[in-house]
């Protein structure tokens, strides 16, 4: 009996040891302990430039300070204009990276369809990213229910930048709240020798006006249907938007078509912020940082923003927004560090770095007192609105180019006949692009 009891105890102990080792192995392989051991090189495919690049560098330094075992390595893409071509070329030529910056939902789909992106939904749950980011940011970074990007900054793209001196010169004391007030102010601006709006139509930034008008006249649901081609580009909603924009042009908003087509977004920014020859510009919130760091202007004092005027069509609660997100490649060589970075980017430390660099953070841990006046205004405006992602960034690559060119043609001739031709050309392209 005793022998038998000892034998049973030995067997029990052996099994317990095996079970214990197994449990230890399982525990060692769980994401929690996996993420705890963050070290090695983290490679970022980076296309940011200028002051935005400085912010990325500050974020890298902040992360390394919190995780001293990690070294950041940047694969810098020198890009002018749309960076997607350079990113594709880098990936196809075998460039290896763990994470990258994305701002185009259509590109996210392309990469996800090619199996290049890691599904971050498990990370959202395990790292409790929802404690720092609201569900709406998860939705904006998701595709077909899977999260592919962790948003680190966003911008109000329905905001009009202006310089306070310019408005003072034109005798405009209060910014217009309605479309009619906005158009009525053109006379004051022109009387002061100021072109009311700077439209940089050389490449893409003229589309901002189409998009804000479209969304305010037709709402976010229609915008979503148009960008997914559920309604054609010959739809009355598109034609009415162009006709409304034509009213501005005919009211002398923007100078000659050649003036607009000669300016890129940065020339338009210079015209508003430096020269003061133009009144307003719709552009992304990076312009806030640019105006401060490049032009030496004080946000909220020397320049400011005002939200796109209400058009009274029942959709004035909408705002066009853009986001920038970090995504992780499915073949990341250092997924632990990549996951840790994507988690850290939502924390208070990271959010405050972003705020200090003049941009908005989606994290609810951000210290709002760090925001400049312009960013504070834009954050509140987006929070109060139905967000619609920049429409051009939702279009397939084929179509987005035609979209920009056809809107340039519209600027050259905003007549009804040309509006028909422009919308027809867009529809023809769209028919072969999806």
């Amino acid at each position, binding site marked *: 009996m005793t022998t038998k009891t000892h034998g049973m105890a030995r067997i029990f102990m052996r099994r317990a040891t095996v079970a214990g080792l197994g449990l230890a192995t399982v525990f060692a392989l769980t994401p929690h302990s996996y993420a705890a051991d963050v070290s090695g090189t983290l490679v970022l495919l980076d296309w940011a430039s200028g002051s935005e690049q400085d912010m990325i560098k500050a974020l890298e330094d902040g992360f390394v300070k919190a995780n001293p075992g990690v070294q950041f390595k940047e694969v810098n893409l020198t890009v002018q*204009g749309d960076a997607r071509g350079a990113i594709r*070329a880098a990936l196809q030529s075998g460039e290896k990276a763990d994470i990258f910056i994305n701002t185009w939902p259509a590109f996210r789909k*392309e990469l996800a369809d090619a199996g290049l992106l890691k599904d971050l939904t498990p990370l959202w749950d395990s790292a409790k990213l929802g404690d720092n980011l609201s569900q709406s940011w998860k939705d904006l970074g998701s595709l077909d229910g899977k999260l592919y990007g962790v948003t680190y900054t966003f911008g109000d793209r329905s905001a009009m930048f202006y310089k306070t001196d310019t408005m003072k010169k034109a005798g405009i004391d209060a910014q217009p709240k309605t479309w009619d007030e906005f158009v009525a102010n053109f006379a004051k601006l022109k009387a002061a020798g100021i072109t009311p709006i700077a439209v940089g139509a050389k490449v893409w930034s003229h589309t901002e006006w189409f998009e804000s008008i479209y969304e305010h006249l037709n709402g976010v649901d229609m915008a979503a249907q148009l960008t997914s081609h559920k309604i054609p580009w010959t739809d009355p909603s598109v034609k009415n938007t162009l006709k409304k924009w034509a009213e501005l042009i005919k009211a002398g908003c923007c100078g000659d078509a050649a003036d*607009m*087509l*000669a300016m890129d977004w940065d020339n338009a920014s210079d015209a508003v912020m430096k*020269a003061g020859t133009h009144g307003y510009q719709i552009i992304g919130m990076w312009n806030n940082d640019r105006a401060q760091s490049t032009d030496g202007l004080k946000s909220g004092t020397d320049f400011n923003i005002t939200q796109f005027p209400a058009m009274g069509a029942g959709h004035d609660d909408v705002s066009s927004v853009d986001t920038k997100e970090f995504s992780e490649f499915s073949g990341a060589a250092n997924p632990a560090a990549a996951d840790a970075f994507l988690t850290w980017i939502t924390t208070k430390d990271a959010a405050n770095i972003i705020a200090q660099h003049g941009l908005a953070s989606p994290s609810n841990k951000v210290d709002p007192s760090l925001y400049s006046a312009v960013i504070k205004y834009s954050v509140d405006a987006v929070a109060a609105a139905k967000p619609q992602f920049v429409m051009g960034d939702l279009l397939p*690559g084929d179509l987005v180019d035609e979209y920009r*060119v056809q809107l340039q043609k519209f600027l050259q001739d905003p007549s009804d006949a040309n509006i028909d031709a422009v919308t027809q050309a867009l529809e023809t392209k769209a028919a072969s692009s999806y």
Partner: protein
Amino acid sequence: MTDATQAPVSGSGVTTSSPVTDSDRRRLAAARRRRWMADMPAAYLLLAPVLVLFAFSVVYPLIQTIWLSFWDIKGLYPPKFAGFGNFVTLFNDATFLRAIVTTLLWTVCTTVLSVGAGWGLALLCSLAPKATLIPRVLIFTAFGVSEAVTGYIWLGIYRPDAGGVLNALLSAIGLGQFAHPWLGDANTAIWCLIIAYSWAQTGLPLILIFAATQAVSRNVIEAAHIDGAGPGAIMRYIIAPLSLPGVRVALFINLLGSLRAFDTIYVLTGGGPVRTTETIGFFMFRESFTQFKLGYGAAATLVLLAAVLIISIPAIIQRTKEAK
């Protein structure tokens, strides 16, 4: 006189002729073949580095481009075989057809302007070679500047705001009413580009043609002078015609350069406004690298290559004949 079928035979101090038989010819041919075969390994050994380099840098990319042109590639989506579909689409694409017309206008104008200006300056410089050394070097320096930098220089000249040199100059001399957004107007943009590119490309024709003028014998010029020809007549009837070989080389080089031009267009107008300055080279870039339609872009590349070959092969054959 020796018959074509007779070969001189040397011996005992007397040259005689004897008929060459078929067997002699065969022996001679065989000897030549043996000598040729013996030289072959050394020849190929010497040529090998160039052939390997050529294979890697020209043949392989060319085969790859031809292969790509048969595929429908959109971004990172899986490619689909398209056969000649890309070429069919290309020649039905109004944007591409317009790019062909723009390329023709661009190539002819930039070549004529740059070579014409280079030729004129070379002839002027030939009148006082030493005194014109510094201007020649300065003009050639522009050719040495990269096309992208040239673009940025001219962007500063053409920009529409107060910082634009051209508009500021017009205002300064009381012609402010002619200030214009030069690059935003479809009617002026292409001409602005042509001027900017031609300016940068004038240096090479200047140097090539100037070299040709310096090869003209002083004796010929002095003889003409003695015969009573004035400087104008010497220039018109002697130096200008004898500089034509230099002009031909310059035309050939600048024509091919213009066909392939991209950087200046990219920097100054980005193909706009509304694609009016989009050449085949720019079209190829936009389709391949902005939209990442690599197959379609490759098809456009092959059309451009065909244009380059159509121009260059006859020119190369002509030059080879002249060399003989």
